[in-house]
């Protein structure tokens, strides 16, 4: 597993997402309320650019008429056929047994560890005093 520095933390504020390709793989990194998530940007259903979809919640129901809406902003809805995926795990809610999107752990590392460590920041001029969003894949 390699680590890739993909942005300075302040370049990816809460509510934004960033599209990139690492070694030819389409990926998107989301900042949701300060938490970072990375997903393969290809829907396992028919291949849409999944991460262009809106972030919604999860509507669930125990009985007709009883509706619970949870995980607000944590469910990614595919821009084509609307399949829903949990952004934390990449798990599909349509057919969780068979479909999941590949999830990549993303988190923030202090600048010092990034420049010292084994990670190379190629495209971002590294300022040691900043924090960086790092993705593992």
């Amino acid at each position, binding site marked *: 597993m390699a680590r890739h520095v993909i942005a300075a933390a302040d370049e990816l504020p809460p509510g934004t997402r960033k*599209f990139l390709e690492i*070694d030819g793989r389409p990926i998107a990194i989301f900042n949701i309320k300060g938490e970072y998530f990375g997903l393969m940007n290809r829907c396992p259903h028919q291949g*849409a650019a999944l991460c262009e*979809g*809106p972030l919604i919640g999860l509507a669930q129901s125990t009985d007709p008429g009883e509706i619970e809406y949870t995980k607000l902003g944590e469910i990614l809805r595919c*821009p*084509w056929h*609307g399949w829903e995926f949990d952004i934390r795990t990449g798990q599909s809610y349509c057919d969780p047994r068979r479909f999941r999107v590949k999830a990549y752990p993303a988190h923030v590392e202090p600048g010092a560890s990034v420049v010292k460590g084994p990670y190379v920041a190629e495209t971002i001029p590294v300022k040691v005093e900043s924090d960086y969003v790092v993705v593992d894949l």
Partner: protein
Amino acid sequence: MNIQFRESSEAASPLAVKTAIADCDIHPARATRAELYPYLAKRWQHHLEVYGVHAYQGMMEGPPYPKAQPNASRRDAYPPEGGPQGSSLSFMQKQLLDPNNVQLGVLNPLNTGQGIRNHELSAALCSAINDWQIDKWTSKDKRLKASIVVGNEDGLSAAAEIRERAGDKNFVQVLLLSRNVEPLGQRRYWPIYQAAEEAGLPVGVHAFGFGGNPITPSGWPSYYIEEMVGHSQCQQSALASLVLEGVFERFPKLKMVMIEAGFGWAPSLAWRLDKVWQRLRSEVPHVKRPPSEYIREQVWWTTQPMEDPERREDLFDVIKWIGWDRLLFATDYPHWDYDEPSRVLPAGVNDDDREAFYLGNAKKLYGIA
């Protein structure tokens, strides 16, 4: 390590298919209402501004059911220059035609002028849409061919529009919708079939429409999901009507294309029709042969929404009954339930059938060299 950053995910679009395909259901949209004005008499421009359109059912400012996505379209299909999905030729080329190697794209404009109570306005709008299809689309990209949109509730003016366009290579079929004032086999629609047969043009019946009747046979449902599955029920009654009113018998060269309503139901409908026809044929003596024979000889089916059973053998069984020579591949671009060419057909299809499915059948039916 190689990292590339992108503003949007555009370049990370799905896998392209290499072989050429036909896409038999593409929906071009107008960027603005005024886009049609150059093709509409001042009298009708004025009418639209002052009175708007008056359909056979209410809620015409929007569809009767909310759609799953804005304009019922893919979220990634907004053209970069603005306007609704499907309104930009250059973006359609970039997003659909080029990457998927579309050799023939059949345009089926919706929300045109069909199913409007004022029949003169309906005819004028349909004619304007047909001019607009040539100017904005087919004359600019030779891969695209248009469907003649007609004011369907007035069979005579519809037939006149078809005769006027007959022989124009920009057009490859006549377009009707599945929900009309009456079932499609009824006599008011016969002039349309007669003109289409004379012109050698197939008649496409696309799901949807505003005929004023409840959108399922058992009334108005609560949910959009019921409308979605209701399209196949509606198409089944349209097809039964075409057979039982004797349309296929009377117009033996007529070719019908069932668009966007599935095809998995075709065998069971035909079996049921054949069975009751054996018992009740004296009621409809003009139906001279078992209904399944007309259906298999005179009906084609577009694939989107592609049937998707758990076992692919089930799909192949259905297709075998219908005939591999009867299916026309379609994406339904830019709509949200779009079928991706490289993903819809399961493995296990031989090369000839695959070629017919993706391209050959469409070229033959629509007379494209």
